Structures are given as C-alpha cells and as structure tokens.
C-alpha cells in the first residue's frame, strides 16, 4: 500500500511538464526503466546478469511492427488486441529459451552466452529481409488508437507507460514473495541444497527468465510505440549496454532502482550536449557514470538510502525490505 503512494507524485508531471519533457524525458525513462527492471530482476533474485534483455524487448517490438501498421509493406496487419498478447507471449517464450540455454551458467559465463545470443540476433535482423527487413527495419509503426485517442500522444503514452511500470513493479514484488519466487532466490543462494531437497533447478531458472522476458517485452512494445520504428539498431550492442548501465547506476538492491537509473541516464543523455562542448558530450556522460559507480557501488538508490538512514539514524534502525 505504501508503494502505491509513490504513484501520486508521478501523476503531477503531466500538469507541469511540456510535451518534450513529458515524452522525451519522463516517458522514455519509464520505458527504459521497465527494460532495465527485467535485468535487475534477474540479477537481484536469480543472480544472473543477462545481456539478452534488449534482444527480447526487440523481439516484442518487431512483433508489434510486423503484425501492425507500418510503412514498409512487410507483415500481416492484425488488430492490436491480438498483436500485443502475441508480442508478450513471444517475448516470454524467447526469455524462457534464453533461460534454457543459459541455465547451467553463472557469472561471466552467463554474460557471455546471453551476449552471444544478443549479438547473433542483431546480425540476424540485419540480414533477414522476410521478417526483419534487414538494416532498415520497420518505420511508420503507429501505436493503436482507442476511442479516437492515439496512444502515441504525449499524455496517453506517459500514463500507459506509468501504468505498465507500476504493474511491473507490483508483479516483481509479488512474484518474489510467492513460493516460486522464493525458490528462485534459493537457487541463487544455494543451488546444491535446492537440488538436495528434490526440487529441479531448471524450472525456477527458466521461469525467472520467462518472467523477465515478459517485462522486457512490455518495455519493447512501449519502446516501438514511442520510437515509431524498430530496426537492427534497436537490438545492437548500444541498447544492450544502455540497459546494463541503467541497472547498475540505479542499483540492484531494490527493483525500483531501475527507474532511478533510467531517469539519470535519460537526463544525462539528453542534456549532456547542452552542458559541454557539443563534440565532447560523450566524455561527460562517461565521467558521470564512472563517478556514480565509484561513489555509489550499490547504485544511486543505495546512496539515497544511506543518506536517508543517516538522517534518521538516532532513533530508527530500519531493516531493508529485501
């Protein structure tokens, strides 16, 4: 219930922000936050860092583009109430497949396997013309219209993204408390003991990947509505690393960190160019990200948490919720 209150201030931005801030900053942060949440979830509760989250988001995005209105004349237009569940299912299935492939790997090996999957998919989209339209990809993708209101308009897109983000957070916090969620965390902490109890570790791992695929897919659908296009560039190394950066600077301690990281990342990416010589803005972005990682190894949410704890230090000895 306490978490629901956080939503209230988030309804204020549409009243005070112009369209640019609402769409390019607030909505984009929410969308990237949802994608990063899918990574944070895996990293926090299963202890596996997956580099395939942008790929799975891309699969959902490509599904929406292929089965929806686009301007490249490829695909089969379907009504959105079919294409959206289809995209989400495909994302969840792809997530499960990635999990099945990577189920025995940990640490750097899991990173290598998921990275290989991501890069292979990237090159596949560049060279396949039947489903992915190669290098150029899909353009002119339009978000559905409901009762004459396009979901791509700034306010509807923000509200939909906000609702999806809230739902995703609620799902994650509910899921990790469920018996299956607890099993997943047990697999993270002591896979040998879980096996000894007679519980297969494959099912929890694959389910965790499928669930994170669902989250990434939801972000991917919103992203293709926001960009109005999807191409090989949307699943390349750039987006893969962006999602990792967002998760890390936000912090992996609490799922909400993904959104903190996304806001900082989007603000930096959008405005670094105004703060410094226009040819050098990437240096600024790099330096700031480096500073965040050095100063706050637990991410920005950890930093904020520590400061708050210090303020309250004398009387409360609050326990972490995770």
């Amino acid at each position, binding site marked *: 219930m306490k978490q629901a209150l*956080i939503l209230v*201030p*988030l309804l*204020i*931005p549409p009243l*005070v*922000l*112009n*369209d*640019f*801030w609402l769409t*390019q*900053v607030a909505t984009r942060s929410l969308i990237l936050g949802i994608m990063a949440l899918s990574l944070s979830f895996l990293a926090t509760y299963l202890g596996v860092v997956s580099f395939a989250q942008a790929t799975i988001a891309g699969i959902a995005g490509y599904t929406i583009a292929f089965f929806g209105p686009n*301007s490249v004349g490829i695909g089969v237009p379907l009504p959105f109430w079919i294409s959206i569940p289809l995209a989400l299912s495909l994302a969840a299935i792809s997530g499960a497949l990635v999990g099945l492939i990577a189920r025995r790997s940990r640490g750097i090996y899991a990173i290598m396997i998921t990275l290989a999957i991501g890069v292979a998919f990237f*090159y596949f989209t*560049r*060279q396949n*013309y039947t489903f992915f339209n*190669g*290098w*150029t*990809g899909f*353009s*002119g993708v339009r978000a559905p219209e409901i009762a004459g209101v396009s979901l791509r308009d700034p306010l509807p897109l923000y509200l939909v993204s906000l609702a999806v983000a809230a739902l995703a957070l609620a799902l994650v916090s509910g899921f990790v408390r469920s018996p299956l969620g607890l099993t997943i965390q047990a697999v993270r902490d002591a896979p040998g003991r879980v096996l000894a109890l007679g519980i297969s570790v494959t099912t929890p791992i694959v389910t965790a990947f499928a669930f994170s695929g669902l989250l990434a897919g939801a972000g991917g659908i919103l992203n293709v509505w926001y*960009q*109005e*296009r999807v*191409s090989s*560039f*949307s699943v*390349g190394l*750039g987006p893969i690393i962006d999602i990792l950066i967002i998760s890390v600077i936000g912090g992996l301690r609490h799922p*909400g960190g993904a*959104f*903190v990281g996304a*806001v*900082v990342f989007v*603000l930096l990416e*959008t*405005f670094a*160019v105004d703060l410094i010589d*226009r*040819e050098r*803005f*990437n240096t600024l972005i790099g330096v700031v990200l480096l500073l965040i990682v050095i100063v706050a190894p637990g991410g920005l949410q950890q930093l904020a948490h520590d400061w708050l704890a210090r303020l309250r230090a004398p009387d409360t000895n609050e326990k972490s919720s995770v």
Partner: protein
Amino acid sequence: MNKLKMAASALALCAMAAPASAEDVKIGVISILEGAFAALGQDGIRGAELAVLETGGEIDGNTIEVITMSSDASPDSAVNAARKLIEQDGVDIIVGPLSGSEGLALRDLSKSYPGVTFLNGSSAAQDTTLRDSSDNFYRFGGDGAQWMVGVGDYAYDDMGYKSVAVIAEDYSFPYTQVLGFMTEFCEAGGKVPEKFWTPIGNKDYSSVVYAIPQDVDALFVALGGADAVNFLTQYSQAGGDKPIIGGSITIDQSILDSKGPFKKLLVGAPAGTPTVGDYDGDEWKAFTASYTEAFPDGFSAPSIFAHHYYMSAKAAMLALDEVDGDLSDGHAAFRAALNDLTFTTPTGGTMRLDKNRNGVIDNFVTEVYEREDGTLGNRVVKVVRDVDQLLGQDEAAFLASGPVSRDNPSCP
C-alpha cells in the same frame, strides 16, 4: 525519485525561460559526431557553418543561430536528436542528417512537424524523396544513384567492360548506388551476372572472393572505408586481377594512401562522385579557399559531407534572404522560395529542385592515376551536368521498376 523530479522540473523551467528573441532564426544541424564517422560528420558541420558565416551570421537583421546535435548513424538517434532540437531548442530549420537510413527516418518524422523545414544533409537513399516524399523535407543534393551517373556508360563504352560482378554492402545506400550504375550499364548492353551483398563491417571476404565468376570483365565494388580495404586486400592476395569500378565512397583518398598490394588493381579504376577534392573548376577553388580560411584545422579540401551540408545550408540562407528572414507565416513563403531557388553550386552547376524537392546535380566520373612521386590520386575524366533523380528516364517507367533492393535492378 521525487528530488530528481523536482530537479528535473526546475531544469525545465530554466530551459523554458531561456531568452529567445522573436527575430532569431534557429538552425539545428544534425551530423554524426561520435564513432567511426565522427571526423567526417564534423566536416558536415563545417559545411553548414560556412554557409552561415558567409551571411555574417544575420539576414536582414535576424540573427542566425546554429545548434548542432550528434547522431550515431542509427535512425533512432537521428530522430531523437531532431525531436530535441525541435521541442527543446525550438529550431525553425533542420539541416541533416548524414547517412541514408537516418534520412528516411527524418523524412518520416518531418510529417509530424509541419511547422519545421527539414533540409537533408548528405544522406543519399533514393526513397527519401522519390517515394512517399514529405512536403517539408528538401534535398539540395542527389541520391546514391545520381552519384553514379556517367560511370555505367564510361565502363561500357570507354573501358569496354561487357560483364561486371557487383560486391556491395547490404543496405539502402549501396542498393541505390548499384541502381545508378546498372541503369546505364545494362541499358548500354552490359550484363551483371552476379551480385554479392555483404554485411557492413564484414572482415572475411574469402567466400565472396572465391565465388566471383571468372568470365566477368570487372568488379563494381560499392563498399566503404575499412570494408573496401579488407575486400581489396583479400581479393588481391587471392590472386584476383579483375579491374575495379568504384562506388562514391569506395575509392577515397584514405584508401589510395593506405598501404596494400591492391593498389595496382586500382590504377585506372573509374568511380562516380558528386565531390572531387582537387577539382580545378573556378567555383570549387573559391569554395576550397573559403573553407580552408574559415577552418584551418579542417581537411585540405572540403569532403563530400562539407559540400552537401554547405549546399543545404546555403539554400536555407538564400531562401531566408528572399523572405527577409520572416518565417511567421508557417514557413509558407520560405518554402515557396526554396522550391523556386536556383543557385550556382561549388562545382559550377546550377542547383534547382524537382517536384519531389530533390536536387538536380552535377556528377563526376573520376579515375585513379599514379602521380609522378608514385602516390595515387583521383582525377576527373568526365563531368555530367543536370543529373536528375529519374536519371533522365520517363517518370512512370522509373517508378514502375519498384524500390531498390538486393534483386532490383537485375540484368544477369
């Protein structure tokens, strides 16, 4: 989270309060300032700045302000850059972007912003203006097919090649280049029995090298930068000895200056391009002189990117001058002026637009020659004036042949 939001809102208020007098004309320039193209993208910015410098930074009392933004060659980044320029910086005119797929993306975006006029930078995909064109998107330059005009005829008539294999990268710009070459070459009677499409950034070309048919007379190589060096090196190491025909970005000076056993293959190789660094036309010499004076740290001569960004920005300046810098009628008069504009380009031709707002350009056929000191250079062998986007063909027939792709055009 809330603190961040507050900071964000405060920032937003500052940004909105930024002073902007009504008489400023803001021009946003989008180019690639990061990654492999950064040095070339920077030269595009120089071209646009040069056109503004020539006006003294103001037109009829209206200050011209240039705001640059970087993209990273991806359509998404070009769209984000344009959105920021329009919605946050409030620009009236956008000049850019640099590469083909970015141009298609901005063409689509321009339809959502009818109050902003877009002038293409150097992106050269065909459909940016030919099919599904946008009323407020202008290209004062050519597409990749126009940039190859003259080469197909030259290869068939002057070099005597009857059959040519194509090796090109697998995306929109090389498709368009291949169309430009094959349109003339096939019409003259030449054959293209085999086309090899390789992914951009490919390192290993051995499968292509060994699949090239032995009975072709020459190879048309539309690869850029490192891809061209890699292919040519591997081809000559494998004993390949077919003559080369180059695309617009295949045989640039950096390849001619690089070391490699393939250099002997390149002597005499023809190529098509709208920009030749050491062209000896009077207008080009004057343009080069003002470029080197304004940018002592630039290249020794304007690149294809500086040349094209310059022409677009120049067109904007001339049209602004015609309407006394007044854009208050929703750009109507400004766009009418752009549509009717004619001016002399740095290559000495007359720039004007066709009905799709695509430029009618000059094109060069160049060939590689060996200088006295043993180094290689490009020299002009033919200048083709007044090249339009339809390549001189009937419009209905040209459009009926369909969009360019791996299989279109074809004359095996």
